[in-house]
């Protein structure tokens, strides 16, 4: 079947099998390998992307379900060559080690801050609680998102 999606502002159309998972569509068909596959069971969140502005676990959606809709992936976070504050925050606060969960964490973090620009620690922990990081013990991820919250306006790295 034919699937047409907008990904990070660009339109893509592909012939795919109806059973193709969205994560494999994004990675293997579109070549956007920033989103990762980690568990198959919606537990780890390494595959999180935005579907029509909302984070989803793309390992448990079909590519067909994204037909005619808009995706945003980690590759679409930085704009005009500038990092999103959440990306900068993860660098500043050592919010990543192996980097495998990072794209999913970043997408959730951006979604959270868009809705709640000044989240407290508990709100951040709640927001990322559907995702697994095996390296950081989460604290530096929390700090990274707080950093982004505190540098969301007027910072030279602000997304334009």
């Amino acid at each position, binding site marked *: 079947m034919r699937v047409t999606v907008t990904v990070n502002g660009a339109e893509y159309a592909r012939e795919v099998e109806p059973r193709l998972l969205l994560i494999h569509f994004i990675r293997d068909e579109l070549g956007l390998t920033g989103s*990762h*596959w980690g568990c198959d*069971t919606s537990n780890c969140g390494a595959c999180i992307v935005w579907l029509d502005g909302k984070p989803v676990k793309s390992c448990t959606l079909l590519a067909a379900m994204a037909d005619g809709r808009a995706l945003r992936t980690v590759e679409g976070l930085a704009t005009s060559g500038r990092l999103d504050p959440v990306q900068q925050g993860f660098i500043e606060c050592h919010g990543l080690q192996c980097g495998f969960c990072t794209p999913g964490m970043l997408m959730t973090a951006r979604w959270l801050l868009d809705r709640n620009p000044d989240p407290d620690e508990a709100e951040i922990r709640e927001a*990322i609680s559907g995702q697994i990081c095996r390296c950081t013990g989460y604290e530096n991820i929390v700090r990274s998102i707080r950093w982004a919250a505190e540098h969301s306006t007027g910072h030279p790295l602000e997304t334009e």
Partner: protein
Amino acid sequence: MTGGFGRRLRKEDARFVRGQGCYVDDVQLPGMLHGAVLRSPHPHARILSIDTLAAEAHPRVRAVITGETLAARNLAWMPTLSGDTQAVLATDKVRFQGQEVAFVVAEDRYSARDALELIDVEYEPLPAVIDARRALDPGAPLIRDDLSHQADNHIFDWESGDAARAQAVFADAEVTVIQDMLYPRVHPAPLETCGAVAAFDQVSGKLTVWATTQAPHAHRVLYAMVTGLPEHKIRVISPDIGGGFGNKVPIYPGYLCAVVGSVITGKPVKWMEDRSENLMSTSFARDFHMRGELAASRDGRIRAVRVRVLADHGAFNGTAQPSKFPAGFFGVFTGSYDLEAAHCQVTGVYTNKAPGGVAYSCSFRVTEAVYLIERLVDMLAYELRLDPAELRMRNLLRPEQFPYTCQTGWVYDSGDYPRTLKLALEIAGYDDLRKEQEAERAAGHLMGIGVSFFTEAVGAGPRKHMDILGFGMADGAELRIHPTGTAVLRISVQTQGQGHETTFAQIVAEELGVSPDDVEVVHGDTDVTPFGLGTYGSRSTPVSGAATAMVARKVRERARIVAAAMLEVDPDDLAWEPGRWFVRGDPDVGRTIAEIALAAHSDLELPPGVEGHLDATCVYNPPNLTYPCGAYVCVVDVDPGTGKVSVRRFIAVDDCGVRINPMIVEGQVHGGLADGIGMALMEVVAFDQEGNCLGGSFMDYLLPTSLECPAWELGETVTPSPHHPFGAKGVGESATVGSPPAVVNAVIDALRPYGVRHADMPLTPAQVWRAIQGRPLRTDLAIGPEDRLAP
């Protein structure tokens, strides 16, 4: 900017936050095919027949490989890192649920999976050994009938310490405690599963393997030994690795199947396991059944420890550890205390479960050792009605006792244990916590405080004692200084998130007085990096970090000779300051490393000892292990109605010697503490009575999330290692090793009003509730009739 050590943001993050890392599954090659593994549904069964005709007829299938295909190439079995053999694809029997039986190569991932369903395997199920404690029973099913010398399921017996002396101390001890405890089977579960892309070039005969490996050079050697391909025609590339924790040290059958698939089809073949395959078939950790005993005087002097261990190694002895240490470094079970005697005996057995045992940041089983001694010390405190922190303080080694040879012969290099423990207690506000606990108890609340103190033995190791498959545990480093003064460092170890591209540049920067930005670190490609045994057992900084410092010092000395020629002075007349050699007594006259590098490549007439550049190589052979230590305090609240444990606070003071980059050290500790909470409270790979794996997905194998982990409270003491070039000890596994007993001690402390002495991990709500009822259960097996009645 010059100078190396200190907090510094990571070089590797720029690509990771943009989604531009390159993990194995991101590798795409022209014409690449995809492999999938058919696995056994049975824990133990004879293979009567395998029919692959239907799979081969699938229009998108290019090859179907079975054990028979491999046997024709003498590849059906491979050596393990413990000197045993392991089936690549089963020929005679399957020996654990999830074992590799056949491999399909197809044009896409989904077709490969489809074709697995078309393979018809006829099995004759056999009785299986699921309970390790039954493995040596007379008449137990023989698992390894492929080995002619094997008449039962016994793998090894290993002992350490002095049995007679321990017996003598125990015989006249005023107080003893004894406890059976299980360190259950757990899994490192890196977020990236294991996989490989194999590309065999039929023209050049060169095999390139992109693999999820923590030890690319060891893998190259093994590929050469197994496949018979000449080693110089094998290139192993370990690209970005999505976490390893010991899971990515061994060679797995899937890697070899991808290689064979590429040789047969002439195309690159990618194989990535799924999460269930990772949890069910790749290297688990622990599975140590221990009976520990402590002897002490009534006034609280710990005198001796002894332990009997049954180690479940699964169906093949596939642990990755130094050859002479079948129980890893469990020999440091004497812990951090000054004892009169110690003895342990470890028996390893085969069971019908996945192979492994050494993984999950365990420092070669120091994890099990620390858990044993730290639980026993808490039990002794309970027995003597002493505060567990106070009991530890009384018995810790004193700074003046280092270097300290423990009762099992390990030579601890340095430490100031009382200072480390004192700092942890201060940060915790320990005395106030105990008062609060008293008030909470009076109000009927279950609050627990757990303390642990650990000593690790890492940085393997001295080559006269330590090898893997005959290869001494050394690591190499090569440093090139370009004419304009920037540098390339090539190392044999492999980051899986530890940040080597940053910290190893910092080591060179520290030694040469250049900017870390001017040092490029190259790793993970056996064609361009020097030989070495790789990253595990917290050995990167102790061994390869030392090699890096030593190679930089060689460069520095070479630069001295060139600088002397440039300045027309004797080399002995030069003195060093970061980045520059200068004339003693005339500091204005000198040359920077960049100036010297350019001169070394110029028409300057070079003196003897310099051939034309400053480049150098080094192999570092550690003279001893390094011994990081730490003191941890955990505070928990337990809901008596549900048994749910909440970790309120966790205080960790680590002494890993000199810290290259404190930010990264803290990150390593944070991750290990989360591991500890997971293992203590949530994680277990259990089996049912039929041998079905009950931990085969993240819905069953529970990992801690942001909600189970508190905000960590860290502290540090710094006791440099006296034998390491810059005093570092390694920290990658400290918190994973040290934190589980702190959590368990806290939970048992909380349950004190119920008289609970011990309950095995994981302390799930069900297990805690059972403990409150006085009936904690075995956690490694699903509840059976006899377990239901057991105390």
